[in-house]
């Protein structure tokens, strides 16, 4: 059974003439690393936010782990789905440990359990717990902050992680490291990842399947090499052509 099902999902924002998400249907299997690729305004972020009910669709249905999410309390749903955004959104007045365990503390976990969980997650995201747990977000670099964002999203051990351009504002070298670590984390945890990006290289590197979106439509949903070999339409073709021309630049054949 698919872990997430999108069935004819449509979403239009007030004041906009066209659909942000337009009749999207897709099925995602448990343990997949799905990347959602498209340029800004293509509806990829909206699709992600529909998945954890930050938005509700105008029509269509989204089934998560067998449940129609329109019947699930949004707060309860979001605690089952990890969520990471580009700007991270760490709380400046809380230490790293407090940021990671903010939801557990609201759920009244005992202190020892929270301390252990925070340390465990800091290690998972590659930051030394003794060095980082009592720091404040502003003392961390952008890359380190995003690692904390990831740790915070993993704290309740969700089966599904929603990642909205998490590495969009991070320099190329750090980004490469984070991509590799994210793949390592995904491989180790057996969770389903939905990862939004506008970077075709990132999308094809990370995703075992890639959703290509444009103007709210899901144009193609397939494995990267299949998309390269059989682009569904002219838009996907132009996307691949642009990546190829970049490749030629690096090879020095332009």
């Amino acid at each position, binding site marked *: 059974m698919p872990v997430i099902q999108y069935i004819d999902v449509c979403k239009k924002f007030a004041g906009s003439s066209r659909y942000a998400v337009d009749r999207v249907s897709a099925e995602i299997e448990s343990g997949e690393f799905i990347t959602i690729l498209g340029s800004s305004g293509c509806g990829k972020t909206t699709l992600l936010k529909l998945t954890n009910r930050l938005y509700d669709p105008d029509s269509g249905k989204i089934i998560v782990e067998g449940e129609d999410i329109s019947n699930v309390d949004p707060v309860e749903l979001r605690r089952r789905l990890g*969520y990471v955004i580009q700007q991270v*959104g760490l709380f400046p007045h809380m230490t790293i440990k407090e940021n990671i365990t903010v939801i557990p503390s*609201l759920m009244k976990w005992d202190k020892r359990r929270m301390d252990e969980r925070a340390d465990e997650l800091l290690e998972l995201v590659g930051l030394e717990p003794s060095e980082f747990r009592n720091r404040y977000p502003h003392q961390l670099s952008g890359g380190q902050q995003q690692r904390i964002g990831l740790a915070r999203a993993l704290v309740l051990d969700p089966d599904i992680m929603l990642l909205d351009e998490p590495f969009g504002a991070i320099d190329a070298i750090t980004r490469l490291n984070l991509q590799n670590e994210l793949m390592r984390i995904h491989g180790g945890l057996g969770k389903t990842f939905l990862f939004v990006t506008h970077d075709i290289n990132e999308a094809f590197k990370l995703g075992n399947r890639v959703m290509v979106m444009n103007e709210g439509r899901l144009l193609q949903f397939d494995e990267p090499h299949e998309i390269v070999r059989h682009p569904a339409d002219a838009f996907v073709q132009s996307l691949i052509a642009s990546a190829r021309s970049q490749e030629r630049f690096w090879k020095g054949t332009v």
Partner: protein
Amino acid sequence: MIADIANYISTHSAQLATQITAHIGISLFALIVATAIGVPCGYLASKSSRSEVIVTAPFEMLRVVPSLAFLIILIPIMGIGILPAVTALTILAIPPVLLNTSVGFRSIPDFMVESARGIGMTERELLYKVRIPGALPMMLAGIRTALVEVIASTTLAAKIGGGGLGEIIFTGLGLNRTDLLVLGGLLVAALSLLSGVIFDAITRKLLRYKYV
């Protein structure tokens, strides 16, 4: 003149102590009431641009009236004494608290609110865990402005029998005694500076995370 002042202090020490205590008491009371009104109103004002106009407009209007004039307007309504004095000071102190609180709540970035919702906070938890701490620095800045204004203006409360250090100054004015004017002025200035220093220490404690 220094000898005059020293002499006055030694002969009127008990009276001075009462006036200083009264001054602090009136100021603090007005400040606490202003905070209790200003902070929730500021929160409401931050909700939308319409609510901002509705909440802010009356205080902006009152603000145009000079505080001394306001004290005197209150006499026919509330008589003289401590009550109209505190009322006038409270109204004076509300705008800085209210406006800064509103700005503080508005300064919280949308992505911060969205990430808080996204990880599964209820709206109530979002308010207590994210919005209020996020607005706190501006809120405190507003309360500090109000504090200094109120301590200075409490001097005028003596004009309508409210007590405080203004009594020394108005006595000095009445008797044309420079020593009393200087003493009163210095005491108010000292009180204002000292309260600012204490308030800053509290602020540093509350906003520790900014100073690491």
